[in-house]
């Protein structure tokens, strides 16, 4: 058993090392081309506009490299800290079964008929002695309520409550669940999510620190069936293993994901629960907690398996809502953007969110258009290649690191190339257009995705 585990580690490390060696060999092979192109780059400084765009892209690249380096460093520090904490047996407040507090699991469900039963059955099998399940049917037009009642009636040992209400949106359903919750802690999740059996035990330990108001879980893609869902699996792994882990080192996780977030109920009440004025209620709530000084940590061992869009248009629909929702939440807390002394770290969190949500996609598209123009106008093909290569290099290094840390499939590293070559341009265009619509104030709706029942 132990040998097999060591073998798996070696296999994963081997692939990660090979991927990094290949991209660096590619970089070394192009050395002569860089030498040859030395004099030709002066063309970019002949025209004022070209010089300005080149300078902007250079600043963006420096910021991007700085971002990757910082996230990798902090993420690794958090990883080391969690390994150390795992060995530390001094804090035992929430380790004994008899001392474990009650947790209320709130499952908002709107037209989750195909997946609600699988999600609920996974909840019944959780390894925790003291919890209840509250399913809030948010006025579904399908058979979500009947299916949820069916599973609830199967449960004998555990209390499962299914309530139905008029449709009012996800925030409203979560607030309803919070009101009905009897536990000291509330775990909010999605109706299409399957939790790992250890999720509650893994999260509750963080609350031994009284400054911690909430814990974000680790979200993974369950339906890795085609190229879209596999690239999303890599995106999730990178977003969580690198970005959220790094943020967790500073106790400032900026988004508690909808599929798995545990809160102190008193903290939820203190901030007034979820607001209904944004389309990213999870991001908005997280910012409200951070603004009040609560610490938010990330727990990689608490896994929420989710079904992601497997078709392009569904994917764009999801990203459109995320982009506009995050911008709405950022705008709502924008006073912190201009008050670094008063807002402290929260100011930097908001700027970071704007960098990721707006500056990165805009710069990526601008860079592509600029280097295509330079290619066509001045026959400088090398610039387009090196622009792409350095971005791909960052992607592959990040993917290799995340696959090792998260103990994921090594094949995901290959998808970092596919991600850069085919995927990110499509997503960035939708992000930029969604940001533009948000800026113009266009009306929008939630855009509920059809579930395929892959849980």
């Amino acid at each position: 058993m132990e040998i097999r585990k060591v073998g798996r580690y070696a296999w994963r490390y081997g692939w990660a090392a090979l991927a990094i060696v290949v991209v660096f060999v590619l970089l070394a092979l192009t050395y002569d081309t860089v030498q040859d192109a030395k004099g030709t780059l002066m063309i970019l400084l002949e025209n004022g506009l070209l010089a300005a765009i080149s300078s902007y892209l250079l600043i963006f690249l420096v910021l991007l490299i700085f971002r990757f380096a910082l996230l990798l460093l902090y993420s690794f520090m958090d990883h080391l800290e969690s390994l150390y904490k795992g060995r530390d047996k001094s804090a035992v407040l929430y380790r004994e079964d008899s001392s474990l507090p009650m947790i209320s699991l709130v499952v908002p469900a709107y037209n989750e008929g195909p997946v609600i039963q699988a999600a609920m059955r996974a909840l019944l099998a959780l390894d925790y002695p003291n919890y209840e399940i509250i399913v809030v049917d948010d006025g579904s037009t399908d058979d979500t309520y009947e299916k949820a009642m069916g599973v609830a009636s199967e449960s004998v040992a555990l209390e499962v409550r299914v309530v139905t209400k008029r449709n009012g949106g996800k925030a409203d359903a979560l607030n309803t669940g919070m009101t009905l919750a009897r536990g000291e802690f509330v775990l909010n999740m999605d109706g299409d999510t399957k939790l790992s059996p250890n999720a509650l035990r893994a999260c509750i330990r963080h609350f031994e620190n009284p400054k911690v108001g909430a814990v974000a879980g680790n979200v993974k893609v369950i339906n890795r069936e085609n190229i879209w869902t596999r690239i999303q699996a890599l995106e999730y792994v990178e977003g969580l293993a690198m970005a959220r882990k790094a943020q967790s080192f500073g106790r400032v996780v900026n988004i508690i994901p909808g599929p798995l977030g545990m809160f102190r109920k008193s903290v939820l009440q203190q901030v007034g629960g979820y607001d209904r004025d944004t389309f990213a209620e999870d991001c908005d709530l997280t910012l409200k907690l951070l603004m009040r000084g609560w610490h938010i940590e990330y727990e990689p061992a608490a896994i929420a398996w989710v079904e992601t869009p497997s078709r392009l248009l569904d994917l764009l629909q999801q990203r459109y809502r995320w982009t506009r929702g995050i911008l709405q939440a950022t705008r709502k807390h924008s006073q912190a953007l201009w008050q670094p002394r008063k807002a402290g770290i929260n100011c930097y969190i908001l700027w970071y969110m704007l960098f990721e949500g707006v500056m990165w996609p805009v710069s990526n598209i601008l860079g592509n258009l600029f280097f295509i123009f330079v290619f066509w106008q001045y026959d400088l093909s090398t610039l387009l290649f090196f622009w792409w290569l350095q971005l791909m290099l960052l992607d592959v290094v990040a993917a290799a690191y995340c696959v090792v840390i998260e103990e994921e499939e090594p094949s995901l590293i290959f998808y970092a190339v596919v991600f850069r070559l085919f995927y990110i341009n499509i997503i960035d265009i939708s992000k930029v257009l969604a940001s533009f619509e948000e800026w113009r104030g266009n009306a929008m709706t939630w855009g509920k995705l059809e579930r395929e029942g892959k849980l």
Partner: protein
Amino acid sequence: MDLVYILAYIILFTTVGTMVIGLVAYAAFKLRDKRKPGKNKSDETMNVDGPLEPVFLERYVPGVTTDPAVQPAPDDR
């Protein structure tokens, strides 16, 4: 033709291609969203600009009541 030149051409075609696909897909998504049947009929409250009404609580309006316990007794008239 060296390796960089060949790769640069591949990147050029994929970049232009994916950007065009991105624009077309976005337009298709917006069109699908617009054509969704009865989008606002079944899901009015999902829209941030739509009507937001309390779900559990009946709004209290002073002076208008149907509760017989607080109706004026016939003798009082």
